[in-house]
């Protein structure tokens, strides 16, 4: 059955060091207004650095509104970027592409398509909602600080460990062991050599983050976003738990890959981080 909504894809080229202000001052107000007016169902944010530093925002809009929505989007961001230009990033030499980067402080369209999974429609819908909720979390959690790679990775660990905690709480018996096996399977031989060093480096950080997540947070604190995020993770896991075990784990893996993709963490790095989280969390559980 044809849906009444469609996804529209934009890429806002902006200096990464000022992404936080773009998220809070540009993207969030636009999306809130469009949602209030009933033109926007959801949006999904991805950080991206292909052909220039940019924030990708995909909008799910009613097909009947698509033209006026695009016109509004174009006007809004042309105006916003004109009033709040970011500084051009430094040219990296030697060049890495024959074709030059996209110019900064401009919006471009349809440079990508949201990846579709091979899930049934209900799961696909749940996964899109999860990605949308994660976009909300990105906007709130990353609004105050310059978005450096270290910050992104810490944020990914918070988000990932929260998802993992929901998975372990709500999954049928036996899933944790299967998940552990699956994550290990995803690692290359090269990764295994790096894992021990990383675990030494990360162990304390993972402990602290895990404690933060388990103890809960006040809405007014810097980690206030975790409350809504925890709900989003539980919603996905509850739906997913009704599936056969392999599909349940598939959906969890897809969700975790989404977190990496939306924060632009390379897949090889994300698999190592994921294994670190799984190992640390399972050991912690067993320790309990």
């Amino acid at each position, binding site marked *: 059955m044809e849906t009444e909504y469609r996804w529209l894809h934009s890429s806002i080229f902006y200096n990464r060091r000022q992404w936080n202000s773009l998220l809070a001052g540009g993207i969030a107000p636009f999306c809130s207004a469009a949602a209030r007016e009933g033109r926007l169902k959801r949006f999904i944010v991805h950080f991206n650095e292909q052909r220039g530093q940019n924030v990708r925002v995909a909008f799910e809009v009613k097909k009947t509104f*698509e033209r006026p929505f*695009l016109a509004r989007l174009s006007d809004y961001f042309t105006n916003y970027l004109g009033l709040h230009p970011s500084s051009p990033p430094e040219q990296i*030499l*030697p*060049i890495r592409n*024959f074709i030059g980067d*996209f110019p900064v402080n401009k919006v*471009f369209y*349809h440079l990508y398509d949201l990846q579709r999974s091979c899930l049934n429609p209900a799961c696909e819908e749940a996964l899109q909602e999860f990605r949308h909720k994660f976009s909300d979390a990105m906007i709130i959690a990353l609004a105050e600080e310059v978005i450096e790679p270290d910050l992104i990775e810490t944020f990914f660990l918070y988000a990932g460990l929260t998802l993992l905690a929901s998975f372990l709480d709500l999954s049928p018996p036996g899933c944790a062991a299967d998940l552990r096996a699956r994550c290990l399977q995803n690692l290359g031989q090269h990764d295994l050599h790096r894992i021990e060093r990383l675990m030494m480096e990360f162990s304390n950080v993972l402990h602290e983050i895990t404690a933060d997540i388990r103890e809960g947070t006040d809405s007014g604190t810097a980690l206030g976003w975790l409350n809504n995020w925890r709900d989003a993770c539980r919603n996905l896991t509850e739906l997913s738990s009704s599936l056969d075990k392999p599909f349940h784990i598939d959906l969890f893996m897809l969700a975790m890959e989404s977190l990496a993709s939306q924060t632009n963490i390379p897949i090889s790095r994300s698999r190592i981080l994921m294994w670190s989280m799984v190992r640390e969390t399972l050991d912690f559980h067993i320790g309990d």
Partner: protein
Amino acid sequence: MNRTPHLRETIAKNIRDNLDFGRLEFILLDYNSSDGCEFFVKKELGEFIEKGILNYYKTTEPRFFHHSHSRNMAFRLATGDLICNVDADNFTGFGFAYYLDKVFSENEGIFLATGRSCSDLFGRVTMRASDFYNIRGYDERMTGYGFEDLDLINRLSSSGLKRINIADQSYLGVIRHGNWERICNKPESMFLDSILVKQIDFYSSLLIFLMKNGDLYSGTVLDNSCRHAADPFAELESIDFPYEYSLLEESWTTGHWDRDEDGIRLFYGGQTKSLRGGISSYYLRDDSSTFFIVESGTDMAEEGLFFQSQLFNRAIMRLNSAKKTEKVNASGFGQGIVSRNFDDGHFINLHYGNGIQMATQFNLL
């Protein structure tokens, strides 16, 4: 040329998988390889030569690989009614010869090709020898990489033959490999000095390939996938483009270049440009533009060469299509001198009448 590592994996298996058909000749053309092909054939394939199943031909004339010429040469050495090109990295699968015989017995006016799913298999084209001679083979003006097979297919179709795609995947095995192996025996790969890149905007760049002998090739490359990216409504239209990348001009502009004390001088398209060194060794400048330098031997240079090579051939294919050209190579094709089965005392002269690719040619007698 120089694809013996692939042949070690494929050719004996391909022969054994089709041996029981009987009326079959394998032709292996050694296009002046320097990677031990002759030694390999003597040592590993001698039994097939003695039984008359395999004929090993060698030409020592070519310095560089020429896809179209090598294929034409091998096809001209074939004596059967049906000819099939099997690239060195291809597996025919068991019973492929029976399959070809059956399809051609049951159908008149056809040729066989593969679908578009895997470019490594585009070379697998089977046709009647008479049809090959009718269109005068692969177009030897195509000195780059790629599209010579598609051009041949287009011209076979234009001549009135019906294309049938091989659907059975068991006949379509292939060794996966990188692009460098496809172009490393091309003269451009050996003689590239560097590539200059002037990035014009977010979808186009001027590329200038500087060759060690002073030649240059220049052209404006377009990234069609993002050409309309500034238009908010482009996503609502269905804008089709046949290729992700294309050349703005009809073909590469040729010219020459040299070095002087301060930088380099370019002479092409009726203009002279002097480029001077910048603060960084990664670029040169003229009065208004920056030309980034891509050194030969880098991954980007390989990518650029592959691209240049493809676009060169693609331009010829498009020209043939536009003009509805069926017959090519007016002055002959597959010409050269070859020896057969290590007999260096007797040569076959293909300069008259009607072989570096190491392609095996199937030849149903």
